């Protein structure tokens, strides 16, 4: 029943197609990788995120043509505070990979991937709404679920679960 320990050594994981492609393209873009519970995670440096996504979508060995999900995790009070998480799926190869970008708590922003997958539109708006992450280049970055005039971002860890703010 015990879970096998996570593999975080980039050397051991460089044969995974997504990691191999990204390293061959730009070794500076990949901060690290993790293989845990049969799931692959690649940590990408913030400025390279959009281009890395284009590469993973178009490369024939990767073909991650389907954006499953974009979400965020708030690690308040540690820094870098936010992790934006992208779940990609390859319809031809039936495989998943998770991309992560770490953002600081001070004016967090990352480039939008709506130009890579239009599906990111609502996902990024939701993350903006609930976490206050700015997606630069998003065509219509407005609140999605909360009312337009709402103050604060409810899924941040410093936002109370109940009661008035």
């Amino acid at each position, binding site marked *: 029943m015990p879970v096998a320990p996570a593999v975080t050594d980039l050397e051991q994981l460089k044969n995974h197609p997504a990691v191999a492609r990204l390293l061959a393209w730009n070794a500076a873009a990949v901060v690290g990788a993790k293989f845990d519970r049969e799931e692959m995670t690649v940590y990408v440096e913030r400025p390279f995120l959009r281009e890395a996504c284009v590469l993973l979508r178009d490369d024939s060995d990767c073909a991650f043509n389907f954006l499953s999900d974009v979400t965020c995790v708030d690690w308040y009070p540690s820094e870098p505070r936010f992790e934006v998480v992208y779940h990609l799926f390859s319809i031809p190869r039936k495989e998943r990979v998770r991309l992560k970008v770490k953002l600081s708590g001070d004016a967090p922003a990352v480039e939008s991937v709506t130009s890579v997958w*239009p599906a990111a539109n609502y996902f990024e708006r939701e993350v903006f709404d609930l976490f206050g992450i700015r997606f630069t280049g998003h065509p219509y970055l407005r609140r999605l679920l909360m009312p337009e005039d709402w103050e604060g971002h409810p899924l941040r860890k410093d936002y109370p679960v109940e009661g008035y703010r």
Partner: protein
Amino acid sequence: MAHLSTTPVLEPGQDKTLILNMGPQHPSTHGVLRVILEIDGENIVRIMPDIGYLHTGIEKTCEAKFYQQVVPLTDRIDYLCPLTNNLCYVLAVEKLLGLELPAKAQWLRVLMNELTRINSHLVWLGTHAMDIGAMTVFLYCFREREDILRLFEAASGQRMMTSYFRIGGVALEPPIGFFDRVRDFAKRFPACVDEYENLLTNNPIWGMRTKGVARITAEDAIALGASGPTLRGSGVDLDLRRDAPYSGYENFKFKVPVSTGGDVFARYMCRVQELRESNAIVQQALDGMPEGPIKADAPKVVLPDREKMKTQMEALIYHFKIITEGFAVPEGEVYQAVESPRGEMGYYVVSDGTAKPYRVHMRAACLANMQTLPAMCEGKLIADVVAAIGSIDIVLGEIDR
């Protein structure tokens, strides 16, 4: 992909266009969806769904609950397929824990999950047909749906918010005679599907309202993140039950219906065929139902049987500990996706090693499918919007969470 532009800035009154609000209270929006239409006569220039009216902050609530207390919350996300939500969440937590499930628990889950799919598709078919004007189908569909809800009630004590799947197994052994009732249902259900098809498939009015309406190409559907029948109706052969099996689906033989039309009729055909396939899976699950325990052997995670709790000291202690303190889940993160009746439903659960989830995120199939609405409707007629919304099969509870 320029035609998938996501700038829905609607500006009124450039001579001949008009802004029209459809919803939030409109019978064909299946809940509280507001659609803002910019129209030129009967033609739609632009369309923008406005969501969030049912937002309840479930993801935030989950962070304040023990892992086992989240299960009843997942029921309430997508109230047409509560068991699929239960399944996806418990699979994610079991993956975090590294739990192995006994065969009977897995098969029971498949059985109940497919009954849920039939239930959900029946509600969809009834309401979708009623939106377009075929009233009778609704009554037929709800007749069979009632049977399924009675089965759920027999197994779990609840008709809709079942919470039947628990971390490490299922809540209860099904009552005596339950499998016979399911078998009886599965035997007569194909004839019921024939009945629905008799009313609709070759009906010329149904054809005129659905064929060639709200078309979307496979490329656009993939780019916009559509999944489930909305994607398969455009000819993309993707079903997570077959392509990324979970909960023992690899033991079942079933076809994945795909249509290439990309219109409302194609999505209708996909779902109607799925009714038959799901029924076939139910029959296979009944025929091969293994014997054995329904819960994993993990006393620190799974609640003990009532009988043991009353007679054995150790079981009582575990019971007390799980209820009062929950159980710690090893650090890590998991994304578990299942094929819900609407498409890819995913749960992303992050654990920080405590008894409460650090973060639970639900990937709602409907939220992504909703994004295809502008691509389907722009340049078409207002009357087709109703058909398009129905054909995506939206559940606002899931979209807004």
